């Protein structure tokens, strides 16, 4: 008989691995991908596959050549970053811009900090914000959804529903008038609107949310706390003046709140470690998003909100410790 193996307990291990968790996220994103291809055709497919391929390639090259370590792309985290980056940009974005975004996401957003587990900011959002600031025109011309008929290079473009509202309010128009220029609520829920591939369909994203909860990939705290704080804060503004401020439902269904709350804010590496922390984090993101949407220069605020709260996470981790066992003890 060969030698026995000796190691400290425990001697069994659960089924979860980094790879299985990352691929569960990919599966959860498939409904949203399906919807975006349905509405935007080839463009969505091109953008998504280029983003994934470039993210994986850049991570592999950086690890192998620059860092001279064993490449770890098989763990799937670069694939997830690629998909999320693609979901944050218009479906007709030129290929070279996508590749640049992937380079910034992986190279700057992840690898400069030490690779998986060490980055303080969400890599996909770092890439997206970089692209938004560097290429404002390309990043804000959203293709009109025409199904498979939508061509990749020549699509007619326009502004997202939030963009239309923002410009309209700035021009002095009032909400009741502007609402006729944007899709109705059912369209918004299903996803028939202009926007990035990931923003479209709340329905598809919520399906993915359910799947991730079932597979125990994420907990419900961060998305629910973001939704709640968005509803409460925007709700207060809406009740005060419904002609100037959008309803909470509109806020939830447009822009990147669904995508951001469920997939971006819940990124493991950049979110807090305790339940209390997750609540504060979520509430902060919700409030900041609405502030930027209402008073900020951009029509969409969740990317910036998440990045800002990412910066607070180490502080949140230090101060919001879990309640300790036996703190309130009954006397014996």
């Amino acid at each position, binding site marked *: 008989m*060969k*030698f*026995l*193996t*000796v*190691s*400290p307990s425990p001697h069994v291990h659960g089924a979860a691995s980094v790879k299985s968790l990352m691929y569960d996220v990919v599966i959860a994103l498939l409904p949203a991908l399906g919807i975006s291809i349905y509405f935007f055709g080839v463009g969505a497919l091109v953008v998504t596959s280029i983003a994934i391929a470039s993210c994986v390639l850049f991570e592999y090259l950086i690890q192998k050549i620059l860092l001279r370590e064993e490449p770890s792309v098989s763990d799937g985290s670069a694939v997830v970053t690629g998909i999320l980056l693609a979901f944050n940009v218009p479906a007709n974005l030129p290929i070279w811009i996508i590749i640049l975004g992937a380079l910034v996401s992986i190279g700057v957003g992840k690898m400069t900090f030490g690779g998986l587990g060490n980055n303080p900011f969400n890599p996909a959002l770092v890439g997206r914000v970089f692209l938004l600031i560097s290429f404002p025109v390309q990043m804000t011309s959203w293709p009109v959804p025409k199904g498979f008929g939508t061509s990749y290079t020549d699509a007619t473009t326009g502004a997202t529903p939030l963009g239309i509202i923002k410009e309209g309010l700035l021009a002095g128009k009032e909400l009741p008038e502007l609402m006729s220029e944007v899709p109705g609520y059912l369209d918004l829920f299903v996803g028939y609107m202009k926007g990035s591939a990931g923003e479209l369909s709340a329905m598809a994203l919520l399906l993915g949310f359910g799947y991730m909860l079932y597979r125990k990939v994420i907990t419900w705290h961060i998305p629910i706390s973001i939704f709640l704080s968005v509803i409460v804060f925007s709700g207060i503004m809406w009740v005060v003046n419904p002609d100037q401020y959008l309803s909470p439902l509109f806020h939830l269904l447009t822009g990147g709140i669904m995508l951001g709350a469920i997939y971006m804010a819940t990124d493991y590496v950049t979110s807090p470690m305790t339940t209390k922390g997750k609540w504060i984090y979520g509430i902060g993101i919700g409030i900041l998003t609405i502030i930027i949407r209402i008073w900020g220069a951009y029509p969409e605020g969740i990317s910036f909100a998440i990045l800002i709260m990412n910066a607070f996470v180490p502080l949140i981790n230090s101060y919001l410790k879990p309640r300790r066992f036996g703190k309130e003890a009954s006397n014996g």
Partner: protein
Amino acid sequence: MSNIILYTILSLSALGVLAAIILYFVARKFKVYEDPRIDQVEEALPAANCGGCGFAGCRNFAEALVRHEDISAFYCPVGGNNTMSAVAKLLGKTPVENDPLVAVVRCNGAYSHRPRTNIYDGAASCAIESSLYTGESGCPFGCLGHGDCEVSCNFDALYMNPETGLPMVVDDKCTACGACVKACPRDIIELRKKNPKDRKVFVSCINQEKGAVAKKNCEVACIGCGKCVKICPFDAITLENNLAYIDPFKCRLCRKCVPECPTNAILEVNFPPRKEKNVAQETTMKVRTPENTDTDTNK
């Protein structure tokens, strides 16, 4: 355009001057008085901040040196006698003079001498393995090979030999600060007197089990037979708990004990080769794995 530049320069300079003035007064008000000799003593110390003196860094040591009248209990192993006499001169106190020391690894249980009997699959830390069980071989005192000592060394003086699984000390770099001694959970490393030409004679084993048990687990274990004790002309060797120990301060490096040892547990290092070759003296470097180790190792 030049107005803007002028105003910018003026306003920033004014801010700078204002800040400087405020800082000056604040620094004056909150200044902590320190004995100026502390800085001087700190300059004289090697600035390794290794903790070998027992204090929290060189500055902390300098403070203690200045504070205490009698510094005979204080010694910097990295700087040695030279540093201590320099410091003493600065302070007008009497230094202690110690023999220089060097770290010595008292285990020769390489893979070839001490076969594995099981496989350890836990975290790669000697402290963790040693708190779990006896180790991959039958010897409960031997080196575990994960390199806690190598990690603890601040002077690059210790590295793990991948062929033998044992740590090797680089005598030139070792400052005898004691970090590796503290790091080893089995107390295998000892600080012994440093001899000219880095010569060493020592018992390379700390196994206290009865001879037969120790020998079964490792070919070069000390079996506590006492032959070395009898042969030593300087009474430098003592036997306790089935283990022989050579006192480095009494040992005169005559090497009479080395060929006496039936298991070659006593090592002589950095000596010229003897006239008649003693083959068993060389530590064999053959790598053994569980697959190619058979149970009968005493060849």
